[in-house]
């Protein structure tokens, strides 16, 4: 049995840590937090140069053709450092969508550019503050032209193209690849609770869209894309959870009250033990997710939902209790605690809410029980 990352993958992790420690430190993240700049271009360029945007893209399409385990390693480190870039939109979502459902022509047109960092992609799914459902969906497609709005769209203001889910009729939806610089597309940056990641409102007014994958299969294809991305998001969440735990621990060791480090009080020790437990459960579920993703296992939907729910809860727990451990200082703008707190909620909502994922998880447990029973 081998349920660990390989030596090469761990070397990649070390390289990623060194790079991100220098390029995505608190100062760099705060530059994005406190300005209108949508993302850190210097950091992004560095990530492209390291080949991270092409990790899962085959060499034939200009990538470096490593695997999803490598991408999981990178995701964890990006989560740990809150790297303010469009990596998740472009790599976990847009690139995966093309790899899964793109035609040969679409792959050739977009994958080399994605790998080279010449373009940024995203997916456009949000329906404002309403649930993402067929009946709530505002965007319609007719004869290859899209109309309607999506909000929020992660990196929608900087992306070159988006994979958009649009209604073909009352009952059917398809995925469309839409160039966001085309006429008929307007976009506007929107405020979100995490200003270190840029989001936009994207409006289509007869914008040209190219079918991605099979017509009428939008929902099932989107579910597949989201399942794969959920595992990578979960690794970012686990990275963020561990960073929050580490911050809380370091602060508690150095902060004295009543004549001793607060880390020596059981109230604090037990809180941190609970954070460690939540983080360890999530990490182990992420290992399984990584395995399922890298082998395209039939268990992938179940593994994805498990990792997603577990990591969402762990990051939220660790980021909120990190603030609590810091006391008043944790609630200041100056301390970084709130950056992790913000990011934890952002990541948990980016692919759909926790209650929705929990519901999906149970559906998949039911299905897997049925499969086992029928075997």
């Amino acid at each position, binding site marked *: *049995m*081998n*349920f*660990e*990352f390989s030596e090469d993958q761990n070397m990649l992790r070390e390289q990623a840590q060194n790079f991100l420690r220098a390029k995505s430190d608190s100062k760099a993240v705060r530059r994005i937090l406190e300005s209108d700049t949508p993302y850190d271009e210097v950091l992004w360029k560095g990530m492209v140069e390291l080949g991270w945007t092409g990790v899962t893209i085959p060499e034939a399409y200009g990538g470096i053709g490593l695997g999803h*385990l490598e991408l999981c390693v990178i995701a964890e480190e990006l989560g740990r450092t809150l790297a303010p870039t469009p990596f998740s939109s472009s790599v976990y979502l847009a690139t995966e969508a093309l790899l899964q459902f793109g035609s040969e022509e679409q792959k050739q047109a977009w994958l080399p550019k994605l790998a080279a960092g010449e373009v940024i992609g995203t997916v456009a799914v949000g329906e404002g503050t309403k649930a993402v459902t067929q009946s709530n969906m505002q965007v319609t497609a007719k004869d290859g032209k899209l109309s309607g709005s999506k909000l929020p769209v992660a990196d929608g203001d900087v992306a070159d193209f988006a994979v958009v889910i649009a209604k073909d009729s009352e009952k059917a939806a398809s995925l469309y690849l839409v160039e966001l610089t085309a006429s008929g597309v307007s976009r506007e940056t929107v405020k979100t609770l995490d200003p270190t990641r840029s989001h936009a409102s994207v409006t289509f007014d007869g914008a040209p869209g190219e079918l991605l994958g099979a017509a009428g299969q939008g929902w099932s294809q989107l579910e597949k894309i989201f399942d794969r991305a959920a595992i990578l998001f979960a690794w970012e969440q686990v990275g963020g959870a561990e960073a929050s*735990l580490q911050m809380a*621990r370091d602060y*508690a*060791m150095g902060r004295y009250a009543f004549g*001793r*480090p607060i*880390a*020596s009080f*059981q109230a*604090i*020790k*037990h809180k*941190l*033990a*609970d954070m*460690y*437990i939540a983080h*360890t*459960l*999530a990490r*182990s*579920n992420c*290992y*399984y997710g*990584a*395995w399922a993703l*890298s*082998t395209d296992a039939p268990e992938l939907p179940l593994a994805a939902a*498990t990792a997603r*729910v*577990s990591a969402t*809860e762990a990051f939220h727990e660790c980021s909120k209790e990190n603030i609590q451990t810091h006391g008043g200082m944790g609630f200041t703008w100056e301390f970084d605690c709130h950056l992790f707190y913000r990011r934890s909620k952002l990541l948990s909502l980016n692919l759909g809410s926790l*209650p929705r*994922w*929990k*519901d999906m*998880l*149970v559906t998949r*447990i*039911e299905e897997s*029980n049925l499969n086992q029973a029928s075997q």
Partner: protein
Amino acid sequence: MDFSDTPQEAEFRKQARAFLDAHATPKNQAKIRKNESEADLIKRAKAWQKLKQENGWACLNWPKEYGGRGASPMELIIWGQEEARYDVPTGPFAIGLGMCGRTVIAFAGEEQKKRYLPKMASGEEIWCQLFSEPAGGSDVANLRTRAVKEGDEWVVNGQKVWTSGAQFCHYGILLTRTDPSVPKHKGLTMFIVDMKAPGVEVKPIKQASGHSGFNEVYFSDVRIPDDHRLGEVGDGWKVSIVTLMNERLAVGSAGGPDAGELLELTQTVDLDDEPAIRNKAVRDRIAAWYCEQAGLKFTKLRVQSALSRGGTPGPENSITKIVSANKLQGIGSFGMDLMDMGGILVDEQPMDGQFQAAWMSAPGYRIAGGTDEILRNIIAERVLQMPGDIRVDKDVPFSEVPQGGKS
């Protein structure tokens, strides 16, 4: 990453299965034994242990000369995984073989090892562990049972508590205080004690659940020869750490209904005129417990993977008991909630009453082998490297440590 065995592991697993298939019944084909007497259980357990030992499947990680197999940690795990699929009685030996045996191997003289270990391995003699006392639970080192040297013997007086299986055990490892004039950790000494010796009295404890799995054990002028001492005089704490480290390996998950059983229940009972599983609040709870169950399972696999590759496992396993015991309590309670007013009934429970049984046994799991609170301390101190508690009794002679009014 992959989940397959190495060729050697696969061969070992094949041999284990062949033995088990030949001599045991898989759990899913086994008949349910209701109201089996303790005597019958012990008889069955001894027979199974003897058969295993004769065929090289007992005490796998013990040296061969003491009745073991000299197997690797990974082989021990594989055997454990395979044996767990069969309806075989291993409970009465869990403490003796899992904890006492390793301590005897580490600290007994050669003569004692040859005398005691093979009979422990073959199931002929069952062992118990005598550490906890009324005044020393989480604070085990606060124990008061005295051993006083007289010639070549020690005379023991005092009381132990929470001793599993004392009523049918032949021997035990006993932690005593031999010097009350030094701080508490320094005045302890460990012995092998004959549970049938004059002056040893075993009284069952009736638990909150109504069952009796544990005992009080009283010692009145019990005489132990000095050659039955484990480790040096005053080194008892060091010896007990070896035992307790093995306890943490031995005490795994709290057994009982898990998310899968809860799912099964929710598919059969109705809530608001539809199967409970369709209810969003029910699904929310199942999802949370499933994530804990899966997280524990994959944490275990990470530990096993490290062992399989010859490495040392990280501290991840320290979360197992705390998570599984609390999950068990939650699932038990929620299972009964789904039966509405009838949840209180004893004889009419669906699924063999396992939810009610889980809820009744869970408080014990949260205490046995380290309370939730002690385990959180351990995670904080050993894993997160946070400071230990301030110990007001640290440099004080044991005889001067305040003990409070109640024991």
